[in-house]
């Protein structure tokens, strides 16, 4: 008797399917019913989860691509060449998810092209939109060889890769500058919220603080992605490289904390650090996760030399970073606006579905393209390995 071979449905496939179904309903409610039905946004809280999580965290956590590309191609850190493709891919998918997020965050998304022809050079958001457009194009170009080299047309392949080689250095340099500009200008957006934003977050150094926090957070996110690939996708990145990356993250976190606290003291708002308020509590949660715990952990060789422990530490950095962006964009407004915003479930669902789509795309790209060094032969389309679901 012959046995029917159906592909096994794994746990993660089920989770992803549920997330996509919830996201599909949320997208329906956003576009067919409008903001009022799909969000808890109000005039007092006009930017919510889709900006705080989708845009601010999405762009910030995608900072690893420019940082590692610049380190490898411009500064000669050849050791990191192993992970540069993964870092660029992660950033590229991160920016694509931000752009997809814009399609439901904007009230009139079919006019998303307007900033290309309608200019206001006094607007920080105008600069951000141009930087994001240009940098996403740079990332697409940086990533393109991974796809092009799979095209079975040797001459076209060779021609393209030669062109790519000639332009790469210049574009990595341009990408680093574009990234530095818009990573900081995302913080610059909130300079206009003077008097609305809680004193523990409002600062004239918001652009610098956003930049200095995005780089270590982006590196931590890249490290996490590489760890997961090593664990589940049979890639073979030298664990020593992850350990070295973590040694860059720690000093960057120090630098950030130094500026953050100096800034709080010189702005004369240090008193808020020790008041019994919700904001102060959230501030310490943010600083504890983003700086204090990771710096303490990374100072131990045992943590640095254990990929699992590094993964855990980096997830703290990422969570602390997300806490910071959500504090700036949501909780730091609550006292002055008098409105306690809690996102509606459809807001969570749509954000989660967007991030999940990026993660699924990353998964398949690592499986079927040459993104990271490998140990085993490439899986075939009929492969049925629960670990790679």
């Amino acid at each position, binding site marked *: 008797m012959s046995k029917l071979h159906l592909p096994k449905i794994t746990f993660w496939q089920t989770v992803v399917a549920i997330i996509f179904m919830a996201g599909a309903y949320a997208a329906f409610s956003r576009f067919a019913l409008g903001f009022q039905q799909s969000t808890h946004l109000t005039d007092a809280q006009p930017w919510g989860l889709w900006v705080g999580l989708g845009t601010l965290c999405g762009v910030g956590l995608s900072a690893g691509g420019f940082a590692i590309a610049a380190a490898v191609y411009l500064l000669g850190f050849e050791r990191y060449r192993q992970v540069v493709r993964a870092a660029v891919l992660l950033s590229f998918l991160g920016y694509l998810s931000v752009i997809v997020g814009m399609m439901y965050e904007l009230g009139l998304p079919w006019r998303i092209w307007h900033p290309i022809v309608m200019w206001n050079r*006094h607007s920080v958001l105008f600069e951000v939109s141009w930087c994001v457009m240009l940098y996403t194009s740079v990332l697409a170009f940086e990533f393109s060889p991974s796809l092009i080299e799979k095209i079975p047309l040797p001459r076209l392949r060779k021609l393209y890769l030669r062109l*790519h080689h000639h332009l790469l250095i210049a574009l990595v340099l341009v990408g680093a500058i574009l990234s530095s500009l818009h990573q900081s200008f995302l913080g610059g957006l909130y300079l*206009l919220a003077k008097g609305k934003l809680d004193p523990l977050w409002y600062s004239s150094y918001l652009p610098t603080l956003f930049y200095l926090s995005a780089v270590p957070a982006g590196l931590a996110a890249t490290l996490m992605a590489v760890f997961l690939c090593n664990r589940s996708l049979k890639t073979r990145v030298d664990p020593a490289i992850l350990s070295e990356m973590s040694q860059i993250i720690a000093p960057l976190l120090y630098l950030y904390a130094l500026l953050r606290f100096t800034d709080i003291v010189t702005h004369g708002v240090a008193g808020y650090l020790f008041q019994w308020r919700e904001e102060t509590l959230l501030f310490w949660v943010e600083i504890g996760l983003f700086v204090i715990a990771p710096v303490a952990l990374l100072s131990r060789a045992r943590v640095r030399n254990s990929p699992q422990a590094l993964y855990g530490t980096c997830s703290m950095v990422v969570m602390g970073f997300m806490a910071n962006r959500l504090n700036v964009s949501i909780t730091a407004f609550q006292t002055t606006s008098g409105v306690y915003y809690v996102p509606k479930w459809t807001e969570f669902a749509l954000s989660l579905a967007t991030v999940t789509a990026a993660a699924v795309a990353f998964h398949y790209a690592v499986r079927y393209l040459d993104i990271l060094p490998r140990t085993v032969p490439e899986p075939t389309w009929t492969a049925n390995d629960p670990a790679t679901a």
Partner: protein
Amino acid sequence: MGRTKAILIDITKCIGCKSCEAACKQIHGFPPESNGELSPTTLTVVEQHAIGQSEDRFVRRLCMNCQDPACASACLVGALKKTDLGPVTYEASKCIGCRYCIVACPFSVPRYEWSKLAPTVKKCDMCYARQAKGQQPACVEACPVQASISGWRDELLEEAQRRILADSKYVKHIYGSEEVGGTSVFFLSDVPFEKLGFKLVPAQAMPILTANALGDIPTVVLVGGGLLAGLYWITNRRKLVAQAEGVDIAQVTGEKESHHV
């Protein structure tokens, strides 16, 4: 900027009849209902504030039409604009719905049509279309007691100053003369402004806050670009020297064998 138009609102004269509200709704074709707050169909509203036991003051809320508006500097497509005549106008056909103007407004005035499928921003523009034709704003024209008057900004400031000097009941401040670098809507009051729900806003014009950051762009591009290019030159030079000396580049940089580009 030449002479600009403004509105002067004397809180001591307002009787709370809400004729301004009704006139505003009528001219825009909005439904007459109001929940007592600014909304996409209520661009000006009369708020009642209790002072002591039996006394009330009526305060109109509307867009302040700032001289150097935060919203106009925030708007990435330039849909919001400070006109030469004074009003801050909104061109709905440009708007992409990012809502940064609502985040940026120090007075929390702009309203968004959250319930619509193609939502736009709504706010008072001091009846720009009417004023351009030499008419008064609808709310001013409707005011039966001249609590709201309109005219040239400099003349209204002088008038406000005159009233303050002539009568000691007034608070010695024209709200809007200096707030966020000056607005086009002024208030006079005999009760401290903070007791009437007026916001304590920064004295400086808001766009300066971001102009400084934007001014750093050329520095970032030149210094950052120069630095990175210089570092690349050094990196590349080291490789070339190593190659010329016949040393394996992998030994110099510690590069491991890799199939990557």
